Structures are given as C-alpha cells and as structure tokens.
C-alpha cells in the first residue's frame, strides 16, 4: 500500500509538471478558468431567458468540473503513447496506480474552477446560496469530481486500444453527463429507461444533493445522494481497474505493449 501511494505521488507530480508546462497561472486563469466561467454564464443567460436561471446556473457550475475530470482520458492515452506501459508492467507497482494519478491535477483544477463558479457567479445572476450550508458546496463538488474522475478513468481504460478516438471519447463522455444527468433539464424529462441508466452515471446523485442543499432541502436527502454518488464513483473505479487489467493482459498475450507510439 505504501509503495502504491509513493507511485501515486510521483504520478501526480508528473501530472503537475506536465500541467505547469502547458499552463502558467495566468494562462490557466485567463483562458481556462475564465472560459469555464463564461460557459456557465452562457447557460445561465439561457436560463434567464427561459425563467430558469437557478437551475441552469447550478447545473453548469457543477458540470464544468466534469470536463476537467474527464481529461484523464487524454492523459492516460498520452501516457501509453509515450511508451511507458512496458516499463510499468515490469515495475513493482501496478499500472493502474500510475494511470489514475495522471489526471489528478486536472481533477483539482476542475474542483477549483467549479468552486470559483459558485463563489463568483450566483451574485451576478441574483441567485441566493443559503448560508452556512453553502460552505458544504466544495465538499459536494469534490465528491462529484471524484466520481467523474473514476468514470473518466474507466472510459480511458477502454479507449486505450483506440488512441485515435481519444478526443471523441472525451467529448462524448462529458457531454453525456451534461445532457442526461440533470445539468440543463431534470432527469424526469427523460424516459424511464434512460433515467434508470442515468442513475448509474456520475453527477446525477451529486447534482441532486447540490440542488437539495441549495434549496434548503432535508439533510438526509443530501447525505443519501452524496453517498450514492460516491458508490457510483466506486463502481466506475472498479470497472476502470478491470479495464486497465484487461488491456495489459491482452497486451501481454498478443505482444501489443509497445515502447512508443
């Protein structure tokens, strides 16, 4: 376990080095963070037009976190393309730890962006956040973020064999969440069978908890929905582990683990 944590730490450090090579704090703030905030504003303006500003603002302030969390798909595939998989297979740790650590900094970036959206945008659109319950917003966002991250890792594990499809997989992954999980329309809008499927997707329960928290709903609803969100995340984590292991087993069998791509 200690070894795994050490490897996870180094994977996260590599992720940080890559992140800071791509972004400075200025470019992150003025291009990425502001881009996400403007995206939330865009949907909140649509909400203002149709008389549903609270719903769309809250939904999209949470949803922007999913975009960052799902970036793990690109990073995991980038890791394989850089030719490190063969070395990982020979290493004392599992490849799963390394792949899971690769996108952690983007998860943090997403949580910071989402919390910033909740701090800055509600007053601009006249949306009231209840106090002191609003202090729990970062906690709920982190729970949703972890769940979305595990979902992204699972998608990554299945897309690793098709690196050319990584951008498609990323876009479909987070757009699926934004479409069906109650971000812009309630899940009740969809047919029953879609709703049943959606209850196994990340963000559905976390967003329900967030809306209940903001509407001063019962604490039991908030807690139940957060627990469900974390359980959904754990299930996606288990699927991700299976997916990564399956990819390595297949690679060993057919010799497709390469030193570079």
């Amino acid at each position, binding site marked *: 376990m200690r070894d795994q944590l050490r490897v996870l730490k180094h994977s996260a450090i590599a992720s940080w080095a890559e992140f800071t090579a*791509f*972004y400075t704090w200025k*470019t992150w703030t*003025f*291009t*990425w963070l*502001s*881009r996400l905030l*403007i*995206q939330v*504003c*865009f949907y909140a*303006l*649509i909400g*203002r*037009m149709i008389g549903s500003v609270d719903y769309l603002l809250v939904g999209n302030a949470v949803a922007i976190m999913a975009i960052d969390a799902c970036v793990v798909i690109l990073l995991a595939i980038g890791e394989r393309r850089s030719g490190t998989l063969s070395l990982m297979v020979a290493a004392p740790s599992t490849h799963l730890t390394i792949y899971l650590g690769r996108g952690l900094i983007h998860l943090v970036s997403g949580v910071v962006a989402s919390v910033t959206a909740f701090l800055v945008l509600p007053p601009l659109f006249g949306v009231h956040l209840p106090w002191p319950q609003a202090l729990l917003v970062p906690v709920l966002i982190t729970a949703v973020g972890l769940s979305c991250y595990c979902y992204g890792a699972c998608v990554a594990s299945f897309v690793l064999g098709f690196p050319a499809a990584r951008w498609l997989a990323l876009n479909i992954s987070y757009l699926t969440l934004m479409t069906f999980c109650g971000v812009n329309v309630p899940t009740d809008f969809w047919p029953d069978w879609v709703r049943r499927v959606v209850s196994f997707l990340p963000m559905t329960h976390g967003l329900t908890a967030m809306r209940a928290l903001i509407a001063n709903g019962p604490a039991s609803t908030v807690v139940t929905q957060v627990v469900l969100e974390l359980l959904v995340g754990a299930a996606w984590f288990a699927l991700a582990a299976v997916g990564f292991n399956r990819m390595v087993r297949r690679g060993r069998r057919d010799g497709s683990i390469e030193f570079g791509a």
Partner: protein
Amino acid sequence: MHHPWLFAATMLASIFAMGGTSMLYAAAMMLSRNSAVYGNFLSFPIYILSGVMVPVSYLPDFLEPLSRLVFLSWSADLMRDSLAAASVPNAGWRLLVIIGLGATGLVGGRVLLSAVLRRAREQGAWTYA
C-alpha cells in the same frame, strides 16, 4: 422564409466575414507557442457576444456595444429578420457592416500575419516541428 434572397446574401456575407475573422485570429494565435488554449477560450465569449442563442438585450449594458463588433451578431439579427414576414429595415447597410467587419478582419489578419512572419524570420524562430 419570407426573404430568401436576403437570407442567402447574409449567408454568403457571413461566410466571407468568418474567413476574414479567422484570418485575424489565426495570425494572432501564431504569436503564442500555446495557441490551443487561446483558441479554446474564444468559443463561448463569441457565442455570448453574437447573440446567437441568447438575445444581446439579456447581456449587461456595457457588453452590448462590444457585441456590435462581432460580425455574427449582425448576421444572426439579419437572418432572423429575413425569416419574418415584415420588411427588413436597412438590409443593405447591415449586409455592408457584415462585409466590412469581415474585410477589416482580413486586412488586419494579413498585416498581422506579415508582421509575425517577418519577426520570426528576423529572430530565426522557424522550426521544422
């Protein structure tokens, strides 16, 4: 559609303006080694300022003049008007504004591109990859 010719003319003018504006953006992006982040940033501000999804009247007052500098706001308004039965006021002038904004982008982009290329040659900043 009540004014199909106007709609078609607006579409053509918009395509021209899109090309001109893209030229300006492309030249500006060449100034950075990390142009992808700037390109990614631009989409939603343009969606908002153009009033394509949400009318510009829903924006704060200080943003409305800025939206008039985005050719897409003129294009969207003119296309919407060309779908309505009422006669379209100042259609010719509005078409000219779209073309003018596109031409401004094209000329500005060309000048900027020349400057960027000249600077790269002078600094020996060209690489093969």
